[in-house]
């Protein structure tokens, strides 16, 4: 592949100088080796160093460069430029306050994650060696522990848009189930109590946007369904 030019439409807002946000039309010439959207954004920054976005690992494990790409949330580092229709429209993740350009304030997102007590609770004295867990029990954590906290899911969820302070959101609930599903954890009842509320868990209406956008192929809706099952089983 030779050099090619790509057209962008990018949400820009610097509260230090802009009265209000605007969409900027900008194009960039790419090298043959530029394959991912993040490669193109790095080229854009070389041209205009005020273009602001978060990025780190560039391989889809740190969760920094989530953004809204042609209307759908995703990671810039895992999105092929050539798969995107031009002009490529980039906006910050929806539903969270914008700090600048493509950088959002994730406070509310992490507050919800922290609210589910995202740590193993086991009050028995720690044994000298590892706690045993069968390969089958360990397999229950697959599809749960791989979450990278990029927020693509929660910020694509209408229930989270309406109630970001009350609804835990898909990422937080996926984490909640990760601990409920762990045979080493002893806090099941308290974890369910913590979610038994008209909003925290039950605002999920299985719209499944979260599943559609997860860059790691995880399924928060299924995890939420399993928590609801646990609630029901506990009640009867």
């Amino acid at each position, binding site marked *: 592949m030779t050099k090619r030019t790509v057209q962008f439409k990018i949400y820009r807002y610097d509260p230090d100088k802009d009265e209000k946000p605007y969409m900027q039309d900008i194009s960039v010439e790419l090298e043959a080796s530029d394959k991912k959207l993040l490669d193109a954004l790095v080229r854009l920054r070389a041209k205009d*160093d005020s273009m*602001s976005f978060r990025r780190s690992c560039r*391989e889809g494990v740190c969760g920094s460069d989530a953004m809204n790409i042609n209307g759908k949330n995703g990671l810039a580092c895992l999105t092929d430029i050539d798969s995107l229709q031009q002009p490529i429209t980039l906006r910050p993740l929806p539903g969270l306050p914008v*700090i600048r350009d493509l950088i959002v304030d994730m406070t509310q997102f992490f507050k919800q994650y922290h609210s589910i007590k*995202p740590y193993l609770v086991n009050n028995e004295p720690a044994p000298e*060696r590892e706690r045993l867990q069968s390969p089958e029990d360990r397999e229950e954590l697959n599809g749960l522990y791989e979450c990278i906290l990029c927020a693509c899911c929660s910020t694509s969820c209408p229930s989270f848009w309406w109630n970001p302070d009350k609804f835990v959101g898909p990422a937080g609930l996926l984490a909640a189930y990760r601990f409920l599903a762990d045979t*080493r954890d002893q806090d099941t009842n308290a974890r369910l109590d913590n979610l038994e509320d008209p909003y925290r868990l039950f605002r999920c209406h299985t719209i499944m946007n979260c599943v559609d956008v997860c860059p790691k192929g995880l399924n928060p809706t299924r995890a939420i369904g399993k928590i609801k099952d646990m609630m029901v089983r506990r009640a009867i």
Partner: protein
Amino acid sequence: MNVAKRTFDAVIVGAGGAGLRAALQLSEAGLKTAVLTKVFPTRSHTVAAQGGVAASLGNSTEDNWHWHMYDTVKGSDWLGDQDAIEFMCKKANEVVVELEHYGMPFDRTDNGKIYQRPFGGHSMNYGQAPVMRSCAAADRTGHAMLHALYQRNVRANTQFFVEWMALDLIRDADGDVLGVTAMEMETGEVSIFHAKATIFATGGAGRIYYSSTNAFINTGDGVGMAARAGIPLEDMEFWQFHPTGVAGAGVLITEGVRGEGGILRNSSGERFMERYAPNLKDLASRDVVSRAMTTEINEGRGCGPDKDHVLLDITHLSPDTIMKRLPGIREIAIQFAGVDPIKAPIPVVPTCHYQMGGIPTNYKGQVVVPKDGNPNSPVAGFYAAGECACASVHGANRLGTNSLLDLLVFGKSAGETVVEDFKSGQLKLKPLPADAADVSLARLARLDGQTNGESVFDVGLEMRRTMQKHAGVFRFDNLLKEGVQKMGEIAERAKRTEIKDKSKVWNVARMEALELDNLIEVARATIVSAEARKESRGAHVRDDAPDTPENPNGRDDANWLKHTLWYSEGNRLDYKPVNLKPLSDDVEPIALAKRTY
């Protein structure tokens, strides 16, 4: 500019594995601790570690810490300090089991224990055969570990300052460390973090090279800050080139792929590692494999239209094994190499991966410098752990899985030392010098006022290309000498970088310019230390130091069995002895020998 002052018992810079492990120690002991991190903790680069963490648990094959220690000393080409290596290998089981108790989702053996896989350079019975020592969570061990450590810190109520970039180390007239200056990304405001103890856990600087497995954030911030503040940097000529970065993209493919049975092949399909390492073959130490691959490519046996890479083949493994043990690798290969490794081999090249050198420390995590005739005199109030530190356990070449172990053991150890020094009353809050923030404010003012300067992008690119060409897998005297000259010029250019973006709010341009200052210190240290070391050892191999009977593999113990110390001021070198004596009487010193695999 108004500079706010905040006071803590301890400040930790960096929230990767080492920083989080240290923070846990401090939070649980009740010290008032601030953890500064330029990215949200789970975005730190520990997250990208794949293959595992070493511990001689012996869950699947017989194992013990003596064998692990032997492998590590041999892997280091005898440049590692044997007291620190003994300490690390002995502590391995404890820190890994602790992580399991914190909730880390390790894979399991059939009887429910932590799953372990073979890894490069790790052997049973002093080099006889591969051993299963790498404790793994699929091929996402770093991710599982970093999240478990963060989660445990949430439980311990650790206080984080997220998206705060540390700028400079504060030392007083006695040379004692009193904290750091730092900038909050969201507001651009600078604060002084004044503390009794300062722990650096800022990671490595793999971004000095053009082709690197490292994240954008790996800019050696702590190493650069220490160097600017007069702390020497140890053994910076030793950089690990990981054998299997995806050709072109640089993204890491874990050695665990070869641990699970993957094979490296050249253009004729030959398993060439059999010629270079008849015993451990594809699981030889990383420096050995990277050189073998480079030799194959240089001699015309590379693959692809440009014969510029070799192939990592796992097509003979069952799809089930690949899906279960290497699911992340499959995703990466599909994403970045365009191949499904179940069906076709992955194109790979040696890629810069890990900084063996760093801020000199002892096994307690104290930063140590030469003073009054003592080559290892602790700097009051200053500690470091993880990739930014040089304990030195990796010496001239690190074994895979020893980095995650290093950050656990020494993160914990640094934390324990701070807690002890705090409780004994040894740590004091010394008064801040009046000019504590002046250096940082001058750097920021320079950037804001600079006109007609070069772009940070251009100068950074020149640095990366220069390091790639002049200090790569094989090193040549003339290229090193030219490299020293060029890096000197690039360092001058970096003093005149100009940013167009002057906003106070989340200014990425300013952050990148400040990061470049740190990278430049690391690059200068690397090239100057490499040019001076006239032998081949571990990852530092020179054309003019070949394998001879007197100097096996080109290693010259008579003249060069010593640690390099580079000082930023004056671009000056010094040396200190390697500690060949273990910490206890439990083990004999590992005697010098020629390294073969």
